[in-house]
């Protein structure tokens, strides 16, 4: 519990994480306010905008880990926060669990608040709102955990932040791949979006729970690999 408390404190006192919170909180309701919903997109109104807000979750997932590995600067090029984290914790497993736990809590609360705000601006309210909001919360949380896992492997935030944000906003690589092979439907972002979107241009139509389970499998696999690597690697 003490480690979880420490990780929560670490995350919430980091300026870049606060930027992630702001992006997640402001982007979806902001876009909702300025967008007109065409008739055929009615059933996904609000939820499409919430897809964009996942950028906030990505930022949180990346910076919670990349901040551990940021060098302190020219005066102390070897100085990094990870040494403080690990000399204060005997178990790397508990350290990673606390980090993932704090990230999960913060992103889940962020997703819930943002979804409520965004849907409050959406009229008429789409069908099945409550289970689909649960889907949004799970999707954001899983995406943050994927970003966290990738950053544990890269130890720098630049690559995962760029790739994941571009894939969400500018051009979806997974969407393009789905034009080439139907297997791309099982990439975590495409599969997971079935949890809350009805109209998805995907070659395979997954049920919401199936989509969630596919995404969960990615999260579990990636975090397991990352945990093994972190255990074996010199800090």
């Amino acid at each position, binding site marked *: 519990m*003490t*480690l979880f*408390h*420490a*990780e929560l*404190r*670490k995350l919430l*006192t*980091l*300026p*870049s994480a606060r930027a992630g919170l702001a992006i997640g909180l402001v982007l979806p309701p902001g876009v909702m306010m300025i967008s007109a919903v065409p008739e055929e997109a009615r059933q996904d109104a609000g939820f499409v905008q919430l897809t964009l807000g996942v950028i906030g979750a990505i930022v949180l997932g990346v910076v919670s880990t990349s*901040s*551990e590995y*940021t060098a*302190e*600067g020219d*005066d*102390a*090029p*070897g*100085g*990094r*926060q990870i*040494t*403080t*984290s*690990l*000399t*204060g*914790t*005997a*178990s790397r497993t508990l350290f990673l669990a606390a980090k993932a736990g704090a990230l999960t809590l913060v992103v889940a609360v962020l997703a819930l608040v943002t979804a409520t705000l965004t849907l409050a601006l959406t009229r008429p309210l789409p069908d099945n709102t409550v289970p689909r909001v649960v889907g949004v919360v799970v999707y954001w949380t899983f995406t943050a955990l994927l970003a966290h896992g990738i950053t544990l492997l890269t130890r720098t935030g630049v690559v995962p932040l760029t790739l994941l944000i571009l894939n969400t906003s500018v051009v979806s690589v997974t969407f393009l791949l789905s034009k080439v092979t139907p297997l791309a439907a099982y990439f975590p972002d495409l599969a997971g979006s079935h949890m809350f979107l009805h109209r998805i241009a995907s070659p395979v139509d997954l049920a919401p729970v199936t989509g969630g389970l596919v995404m969960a499998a990615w999260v579990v696999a990636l975090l397991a690999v990352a945990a093994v690597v972190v255990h*074996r690697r*010199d*800090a």
Partner: protein
Amino acid sequence: MITVEHVGKRRGRTKVLSDISFEARPGRVTGFLGPNGAGKSSTLRILLGLDRAEEGTALVCGLPFHRLTRPLTVVGALLDGSGAHRSRTGRAHLRWVAASNGLPRGRVDEVLDLVGLTEAAGKRVRTYSLGMGRRLGLAAALLGDPDVLVLDEPVNGLDPGGIRWMRELLRERAASGRTVLLSSHLMGELAETVHDVVVIHHGRIASRGTLAEVTGTHRTLEDAFFALTGDGR
């Protein structure tokens, strides 16, 4: 008490540490002396569970690092720089470190005062000088009032007043029965501070003993060091 026995480590195909064995005893300041790249930091990082050794054991108070519960109350560590993220304030850094080991919040202000950073505590770490960063790192090491201190080049970046302050603090810790192990490549400075010396060279122990034993018949520790390592040019 620190016990290092037969520690060996490779990086790639290079053997960086071979058969490193020494002790650092309670009530004494032990200096780990060697040129840059001799393996001082590697040994300390293995002791602190940061890096892995292929051979041997490194124990703090009889236990390997990964067996410690609430490690900050057993061993405090100062490695490179401050160990803090640059965009956090000094106080925010110490607060999460304290929280990670369930230490009382009031302890943060105590150690800030102890290292002379009370006034800078609300400033972001990126605005700190190298010396202030070292003081912040030391504050984190002292949070849990540990029995053992492990410090890598602690006087790096400190001004002459800071060096003197650090020396007195370390000798006081030892006088109260605690164990202090510090590494340095500054031989003159080390000779002023330590009771015992471990000399490391090319990843091997070249000599160990009390300051007088290691200095031997040489005029200074520095002379003894160059005689031991044959590096005096």
